C-alpha cells in the first residue's frame, strides 16, 4: 500500500506529494495527517503540491477537509506550490478551494503559517498567563 510521508518540522508538519494521487491514497493522507496533528501537537500543516499535475474535485475536497479538520484541532493548513495550469483548471471546474490557505512556495507558506500562529498567540495573550 502506497503511503505519503508526513515530516515533522518544528511545530509544523510537512507533506510533499510526489506521486500521482488516487482516491484511496488521498483519503489515507487525510486520516494520517489529522492523526499526526493530534499526536505531535502541530500548529501548522504545509502541503506541497508542486509535483502534482492534476487536482480534480475529489482531491480539492480532500484539501478542504484537511484544512477544516486541522482547524478544529487548532492547526492551520497551507497548500503551497500549485502549478498555474492546476489553478486555471480548478476555477473552471468550479472549485475555488474556499477555506484553504495557499502560498506560492514552501518559504512563503512557512512565513504565512508563522504569522498566523503568532497572531493567534497574541490574541490569546492574557495578563494573568502563567508563563509570563
Amino acid at each position, binding site marked *: 500500500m502506497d503511503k505519503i510521508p508526513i515530516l515533522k518540522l518544528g511545530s509544523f508538519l510537512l507533506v510533499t506529494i510526489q506521486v*500521482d494521487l*488516487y*482516491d*484511496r491514497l488521498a483519503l489515507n493522507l487525510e486520516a494520517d495527517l489529522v492523526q499526526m496533528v493530534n499526536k505531535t501537537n502541530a500548529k501548522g500543516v504545509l502541503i506541497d503540491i508542486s509535483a502534482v*499535475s*492534476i*487536482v*480534480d*474535485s*475529489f482531491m*480539492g*475536497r480532500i484539501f478542504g477537509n484537511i484544512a477544516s479538520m486541522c482547524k478544529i484541532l487548532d492547526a492551520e493548513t497551507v497548500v503551497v506550490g500549485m*502549478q*498555474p*495550469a*492546476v489553478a*486555471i*483548471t480548478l476555477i*473552471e*471546474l*468550479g*472549485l475555488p478551494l474556499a477555506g484553504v490557505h495557499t502560498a506560492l512556495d514552501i518559504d512563503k507558506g512557512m512565513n504565512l503559517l508563522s504569522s498566523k500562529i503568532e497572531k493567534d498567540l497574541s490574541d490569546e495573550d492574557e495578563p494573568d498567563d502563567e508563563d509570563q
Partner: protein
Amino acid sequence: MITLSKDSMKIVKDQDVVPFRARVKECAVKVKMGLVNQTKLITAASELVRNMLKYARGGETLIEIINQGRDNGIRLTFKDNGPGIADIPLAMKDGYSTGKSLGLGLPGAKRLVNEFNITSVVDKGTTVVIVKWANG
C-alpha cells in the same frame, strides 16, 4: 473526422486511474496540446473515471487521437454498464449529486473540454464522450 490512433483501457479499481491519466497525457503530448489544455483534459477525464468507479463499479475507456482539417485532438469515451442516469439535465447541474460528493464532476468536466456528449439508459449504463482539441 479521422481517427489516427485508438487505445482502450479497462477501469475496475481506484488505482487504474493513474496509468489511465498517464496514457491520456502521453496522447495529449503527441498532438502537441499545451500544458493548460492537457491539465483540463486530464482533470475532466479523472472526474469521469471517478463517476464510472463510483456509480457503475468501473467500465471501459477509449483513448483516440483524432484529426479534423488542421486540428488534432483527443477523444475519450467512458462506457459503463451501471445504473444509468434517469434525468441527465439534472445530473448536469452544478451541485447536484446522488452520492456524497460536491456534484461538480459532470458539469465541471463539461466546462473543461470542447465537446461533451452524454447518453444514458437506466439499468443499462452510461456513455460519455469528450473531445479536447490541441488548440481548443
